[in-house]
């Protein structure tokens, strides 16, 4: 067995999986609180990548150093994605809070189509090159043959982001309010929790995480276009379902499992059906274990 190849695939899968996990968190948090598949979440991730691209391009022209560009671009992308997430919720989901179950989903699909075309019209429908901003420091030389600096950055950043999120949910007042709202929205409201605020906050956090994912993947892959959100969104959703939708550690685990599955399948079997693998996995989980790895099976209430 070729161990170097194995480790390459392993870390490739870990990198991919971290990104999926970052996006999946947005799906799972929103689903946990309002039971909605935020179909436009992948588009928020794409918007993050695009915003970062534009900021990086502008700063590059003004001659900023690479690392500064990366940090500023990431911060701006996070701010903008949070704003987009908030606006999205206000326009497309909030008026539908009491509507039939299918209405918000259709509205979300509409929003997703709208945002894609907004980017096409405002910028371009071509692939845009993303500048390589991650420096290759010397202390990473020994592992350079299996993973590059940008992969290390992705893994470390996502780990930090997920740890911060876990701490936030667990120990802060707002995090407690989020958990309470997810458990039972009506009861939480009776206890004086502003549910609208919690829902908005959920969208803001989810979108920010997606933005982090967008910036990281853009600097890793090196190109961005308007369509990257759709496929990434579906895969992240698969990850969320795989881990058990509504469960935050589940989304992280699901992302990693999906990343490894894809990486090993493309590395050892064939890369033709790379995208179909995620779909097939999704269909299989939903049929055989809809509650996912960490989710609890819910009994149907009549």
């Amino acid at each position, binding site marked *: 067995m070729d161990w170097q190849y194995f480790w390459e695939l392993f870390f490739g899968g870990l990198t991919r999986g971290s990104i999926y996990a970052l996006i999946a968190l947005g799906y799972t948090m929103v689903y946990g609180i309002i039971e909605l598949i935020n179909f436009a979440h992948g588009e928020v991730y794409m918007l993050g990548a695009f915003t970062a691209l*534009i900021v990086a391009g502008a700063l590059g022209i003004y001659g900023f150093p690479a690392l500064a560009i990366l940090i500023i671009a990431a911060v701006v992308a996070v701010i903008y994605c949070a704003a987009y997430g908030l606006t999205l919720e206000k326009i497309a989901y909030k008026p539908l809070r009491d509507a039939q179950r299918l*209405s918000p989903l259709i509205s979300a699909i509409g929003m997703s*189509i709208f945002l894609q075309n907004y980017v096409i019209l405002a910028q371009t429908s071509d692939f845009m090159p993303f500048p390589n901003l991650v420096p290759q420091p010397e202390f990473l030389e020994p592992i350079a043959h299996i993973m590059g600096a940008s992969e290390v950055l992705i893994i470390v950043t996502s780990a930090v982001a997920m740890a911060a999120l876990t701490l936030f949910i667990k120990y802060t007042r707002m995090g407690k309010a989020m958990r309470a709202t997810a458990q039972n929205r009506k009861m939480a409201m009776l206890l004086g929790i502003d549910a609208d605020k919690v829902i908005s906050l959920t969208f803001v956090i989810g979108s920010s995480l997606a933005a982090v994912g967008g910036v990281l993947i853009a600097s890793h892959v090196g190109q961005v276009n308007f369509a990257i959100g759709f496929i990434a969104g579906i895969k992240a959703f698969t990850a969320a*379902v795989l881990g058990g939708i509504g469960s935050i550690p589940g989304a992280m685990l699901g992302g990693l499992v999906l990343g490894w599955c894809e990486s090993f399948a493309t590395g050892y079997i064939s890369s033709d059906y790379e995208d179909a693998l995620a779909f097939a996995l999704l269909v299989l989980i939903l049929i055989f274990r809809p509650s996912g790895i960490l989710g609890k099976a819910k009994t149907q209430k009549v």
Partner: protein
Amino acid sequence: MQGLKKSILVSLWFMFLTFPLMVIRIDSLNGTIDWRWENMLGMGAGSFVLSFVWRFMMARKEAGRAAAAGGVMSARGAWFERLRSDPKAAVPALAVILAVFLVLPWLVSTYQTNIMISALLYVMLGLGLNIVVGLSGQLVLGYVAFYAVGAYSYAILNSNFGLGFWSVLPIGGAMAALFGILLGFPVLRLRGDYLAIVTLGFGEIIRLVLENWSDFSQGPSGIANIDRPGLFGTQLSVSDATTYIYYLILAAVIVTIVAVTRLKNSRIGRAWQALREDEIACQAMGIDITTTKLTAFALGACWAGFAGVIFAAKTTFINPASFTFLESAMVLAMVVLGGMGSVIGVSVGALVLILLPEYLRAFSEYRMLIFGATMVLMMVFRPQGLVSPGRTKYNVPDAEGAGAAAARPAAGGNA
């Protein structure tokens, strides 16, 4: 005054929100930035006006809801209701519409006829999806997969075995129905949004298989030189063939409309609607959910299959790029825009969504943008669509009639 302040804030917010994407454009070759401030002004002004419209619509929606709760029915759409329910008005109206469609190819150019053909194809797809989404309430997002199955059935059978259009038409429909059942079986337990995502995955898998399995489907380059439908062995010129296909698809649409209307009021159609309203209550009423769902999937898919065969025959060339998720979303948009469950609504929705962008060429690049926005706005302000489906009402005139009406469902339950 309050409203003015709100609108100013909204417009400032949107100017901030759209700033990087709308204003900055990087020219990386020359290393310059193109600042497009005029876009920001437009955005600010646009969102300022739109926020007023939004609030006005919201207020109206609230007022409408309050009125409905108070038992006051609005008089709006009364003429339309009359047109639909009164045969004296409905028959001439239908006759006029039919006559217009019949003479259309003789009045307009071949190009226009072609546009009409694709519009009618979408009517057919919309009506098929309406069975699944509108009548039985199962949100299917991979509908275009069945369309692809139909189209590829014809393309492959025609190019490999030389089978003609008429013999493949039923095969294509049957193949699509088979795929509908194949998809239907595993997803029987899923509902709502999970079902939507699984069917989306199914649709994408079909497309990816068509793209990658080159020996079977010739991959992304597609299948060319598919035969046009024959007319008793005569060779038709291109414009005559277009007219011929136009009448063919028109006939198919009429058959579809009749079939769907009849289905809607049939036993199975009522079972679908019961399923849509409440799955558990429906089951409690003794309706076999498995059969009901599977027939909805099979029949819905079957129509997509027919439409696919006609599509392949019309364009004589197909490739997987014609069967993306966007296509499914577009058909869904038609059903949603027209009114889920309403046959007239879906037909009108499809015609509007296909023909309007064709004739508003100036807006053609905004087409998908408007599509998306329409879907969101329809859900927010008019979730029942342009034409809300009429409900069949049973009037019970006297005690005897009531007894007979009560006896009927009981007898049905035993059957």
